[in-house]
Structures are given as structure tokens and as C-alpha cells.
């Protein structure tokens, strides 16, 4: 089991004794190698769940084990370590460093775990090759198309060979054709054995996954599995 979540609660204090319960007791297991979509309308708690799974935040209550390690109550720096080693993020707005080349952007996670420069370059080039962007590695984000930027972001997410790839609306800023290309890339990565969590509100994007978890009002409403 890669992810094991039991009775997860997240409560936000909004001041003046107002509390928002974003998650109200979520149970979720995810196997290694699964391709899963998390769906839900805005305000459903799916972003909160994604932040918790992505180790960007800690739960108010409940347990979360990632790769057999309880990560619910770790410090900021320990969470940073987990994010670096175990999780690769792909964002809707790509979030590449504008002034850095594609290569440097992909190298970034390796810089933060102290990988020596020569090895870093080799790994980053391999990751860029995996998304067919090796020829564009010295270009800066503003010299790349939207699809290329997202592929750089995917290479960056994969460069540390994480246990988990988290994609938050990865096609939200792309046109349909480019979005489809990115989804094909995810399918390919899935076949290579990566575990992928896709957060989206679009049904046809979610339809790429083998399992769709619907969230509403902080709870899992439906957990459907389908043949790939």
C-alpha cells in the first residue's frame, strides 16, 4: 500500500471562533502503480486533500501513511524532505522559474537534495528526454509553448523518481489538443509504473484514470473503479 489514509480531518480556524471543516473523516487507500483521479466541485475539499497527500500541509486529526511512514505530524523541514524524495508536483500554471532554463528548472529538486552537479545534469537530461524535450533544454519558459512548459514541469516532477506524481488540473491552462497530449503522456508514465494522482473537475480528463474518487463536503462521496 502506497497511501493509507484513515479518518482524516482538516479544520481551518477563520478567526472569531469560526471554523471551516474542509475534510470530515476521509478514508482512502491507494496502491502503488494506481492511476487515480480526485474529482469534486470547488469547495468540496479536494484541494485540501491534495495538499495533505502532497505533504504541503498536516491534518488536524487522523492518520496518513505514505510508503509505510506516518507523515501526519512531521515538522516543516521533514515535510520538505518527504516532498523532495517521494512526491512530484505538476501544477495547472506550470510554476516554472521564469529566469531559468528548462534544464535548470528540472535540476531544482536535485539541488535541494544535494545531488552533485554532474549527476544532476545527467538525471535532468534523462528526465527531459523522457518527455521528448531534450532539444529544448536550454530554452527559458517564455520561449516554450504551453504544452512544452507542462512537459518541463512533468520532467521536473519525475527527476527524483518519486513514489507519487501529483497533478493539479494539469490541462487547465492548455487547449484541448495539447491537453490530450499531456494526458497521453500521463498514460505512458502510468504504464511505466508511476503512481499518479490527478486532481480535476473535468469529467473527460478524469476519465483517463482507472479510478475516480468523488469528494463532496469534505467526504468521499463515491469511489469508482473502472477498467483502463
Amino acid at each position, binding site marked *: 500500500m502506497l497511501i493509507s489514509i484513515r479518518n482524516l480531518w482538516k479544520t481551518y480556524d477563520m478567526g472569531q471562533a469560526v471554523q471551516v471543516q474542509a475534510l470530515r473523516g476521509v478514508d482512502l487507500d491507494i496502491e502503488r502503480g494506481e492511476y487515480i483521479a480526485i474529482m469534486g466541485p470547488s469547495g468540496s475539499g479536494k484541494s485540501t486533500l491534495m*495538499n495533505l497527500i*502532497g505533504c*504541503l*500541509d498536516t491534518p488536524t486529526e487522523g492518520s496518513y501513511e505514505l510508503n509505510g511512514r506516518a507523515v501526519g505530524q512531521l515538522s*516543516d*523541514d*521533514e515535510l*520538505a*524532505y518527504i*516532498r*523532495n*524524495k517521494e512526491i512530484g*508536483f505538476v*501544477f495547472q500554471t506550470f*510554476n*516554472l*522559474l521564469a*529566469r*531559468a532554463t528548462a534544464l535548470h528548472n528540472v535540476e*531544482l*529538486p536535485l*539541488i*535541494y*537534495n*544535494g545531488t552533485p552537479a554532474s549527476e544532476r545534469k545527467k538525471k535532468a537530461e534523462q528526465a527531459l528526454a523522457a518527455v521528448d524535450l531534450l532539444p529544448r533544454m536550454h530554452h527559458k519558459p517564455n520561449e516554450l509553448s504551453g504544452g512544452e512548459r507542462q512537459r518541463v514541469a512533468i520532467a*521536473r516532477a519525475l527527476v*527524483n523518481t518519486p513514489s507519487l506524481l501529483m497533478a493539479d488540473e494539469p490541462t487547465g491552462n492548455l487547449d484541448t489538443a495539447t491537453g490530450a497530449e499531456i494526458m497521453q503522456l500521463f498514460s505512458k508514465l502510468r504504464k511505466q509504473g508511476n503512481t499518479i494522482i490527478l486532481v480535476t473537475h473535468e469529467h473527460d480528463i478524469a476519465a483517463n484514470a482507472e479510478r475516480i474518487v468523488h469528494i463532496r463536503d469534505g467526504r468521499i462521496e463515491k469511489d469508482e473503479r473502472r477498467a483502463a
Partner: protein
Amino acid sequence: MAKLRTPIWESVKISLASLRANKLRSILTLIGVIIGVTSIIAMVSLISGFNKLVADQLATLGSTTFIVEKFGIIMSDDAWFNALKRKDLTLRDYQAIVEGCTECEEVALQMASNRKVKYGSEHFSRVPIVGITPNYMKVVALDDIVDKGQGRSITEFENDHRRQVVILGPEMAEKFFPKLDPIGKKVKIEGADFTVVGVPKKRGSFLGDNQDRFAAVPFTTYQKYFADKLEPWEGLQFYIKAKDYPSLERAQDQVRAILRARRHVPYHAKDDFGMYTAETLMDIFKQITAGISFTLVGIVSISLLVGGIVIMNIMLVSVTERTREIGVRKALGARRRSILVQFLVESVTLAAVGGVLGILLGIFLAKVISWTTPIPATIEPWSILAGLLVSTGVGVFFGVFPAAKAAKLDPIEALRHE
């Protein structure tokens, strides 16, 4: 759990890249630090150059020589008005010293006034004409200056017989006799003929005083031709050389006692004449430069404070602008320390670049001033080191707050930042 380590060098490279990306902003940000460090370097160079120059010049006076004159060094208007009532020193005072001062080795005389000097169609209208006794050159340690030039000094014989001979300043000799040997030529001083016997080598100017433009004649000749008829001893100076350094104070005491007795100065009254050594002059000069340095420290501190605040401000702007970048870095595994170090290195790099520019500008400024004015400059290595340390110190001190602010950002909030 293994600690993530981020090489500092990566942070430096990231910082330099972002400095390059915002060149104009970086320069504007640095103006305060640049001005501060430039002032440190330039002023330290000029003051120490100045000190060295003064020390060199005073060294020609020699460490065992002291000067006695009517006024001496007077630091206030009141003292000056009182001093105006003093009697002139006279040749009788001189004779009394020569006879009575056992610790004195040489007692030389000097008087001076500005006169017109002419040769052919060329002339200098206001040249200091100095009347000196032949031993003056020994007392003032100017021997070598005449030796390395052309000709010779004034002899006892010439002084005894009021000969019309002159040691001519090198600048004048050059103008009068561009390609000729000046020795033996006759120049006119206030209409009287004087034969050139010596031309010293060039010394340049000192505190705006051109030391290559003068004419020295025997003291007796000066008395005959140039002394004021009504006040023949006006401006008379005694240049006295003690036997050695330990006897300098005793020599001064003897001279003081002789003059006070001759001039009937009451027991409790102050001297009615001035007496000083090269050391006295150096001390006074050091007091003045210390005052200047003190003011300078104030100016430098203010400009560095302002420079530091500007850096802090720009770093805060930078943190806000790059909130999203910080969020991304944190999502990718940057720890608080990595972010802190990145921004701290950035502010230190910024300040250090300002420091280096300030050092270069300061050296340049000091050089320009020393080329265009008589003030010399000595670049002090410690001032360069101080400039670097102070500027990086400013970078650390004013960079900590913005860097800590960046490090503390919540990754989720930061990623959401527009």
C-alpha cells in the same frame, strides 16, 4: 531522517543571476552602500596620503630642530590680538642664544618677503625672497636638495660680505634659462643684480605652496636690500638645531629662559614668543585630521544605514514578488534554511557588489583628486578590507529580516499567490 543539504554556492549563483536580471534596480539599490564605501576608501586614502606628505615635509625640518618666532602657532583670535603687541625678535636675541645655549648645535636665521624677480624679458612678480644664514641648510636638512641640484649653497664669506648671490628655485631657473646652465647668470631682484650660485632639485608643491618658486639670498644681503626700514626684524625666525634628540627639550628650555630674561617676561606670564618643533606641527595636524575622520565616520554611518534600509526594502519587495517562486521551491523540497540562505546570500551579494563598486570608485576618486590637486593619496589595504567587511555586514544585518520572512512562508499560501 537524513538532512537535505543545499550547497551555498548554488544560492550564490541563484543570487547573482537575479542581480543580473535586474541590473538597473540593483545599481539603484546599491547607491547608499556605494557612497558609504567610496567615502571610506577615498577619505582614508586622502587623509593618510596627507598625513604621510606632512610627515615627509616635516622630516626635512628634522627631529632635533625647533623654530622660534614672534607669533608661533596661534589658534584663536584673542590670542592673535594679544600677540600683535609682542616685540619683534632681534639679532641681539640671536646672539644671546648663540652665546648662552649650550645644548644648541646650530642657530640659523631666516627672514622672508615677496619680491619681483626678473631675467631678460621674463619675470615672476611675487616670489618669496628668503634671507638665510649659511648654516640654515644644515638645520633644515636641505643639504641634499642643493647637492642633487646644480651649483652650491651660500658660503660664510658671501654672508659676511653681503654678496649679491642667490639660490634660485628650479621652476624659475627653468623659465629663465630653458636650455642654459643657470649657474653664474645674473637675475634682477627688485632691480638689483644677483648671481645664481645654486639651483636645488624639484620638490613639487606642498599644501598649495609651490616649493620650487623661491629665491634664497645671504641673510645680511637680505637685511641690506629687502628688510623693512622701520621694522628691520619683522618676521625674523630662528631655526635652532639641538645637539641630539635627548637634548632637544633642554635646548628649548635654555632658549626659553634666555628669551624670557631678555624680554622681561614676568614669572607667571606666558611666553611672548612662539616655539615649535616638527612634532608639534605634526600633532596639530593629526588633531585636525582626527576631527575630519570623526565627521567622516558619521557621514559613512548614515549613508550605510540608508543603504542598508534600501537593501532591506528591495529584498522585501523581492520576497513579495517571488512569493510564488518560494512556494514552488518549497513544494520541490526546499527547507526553510535553503530559502533563508538563498535570500541572505542574495542581500549579502548585493551589498558586497556595492562594496566592490564603492572600493573601485573610492580608489578612482582618490587618484583623481591626487592628480588634479596637490593632495596626495595613499590607498590603505586595511581600508579596502574594512569596506568589504562593512558592506557585507550591512548585507547580513539588513538581509536577515526579509530572508526570515521568505523562509517562514507557508508553501500552500505561497503557491496560491498571484
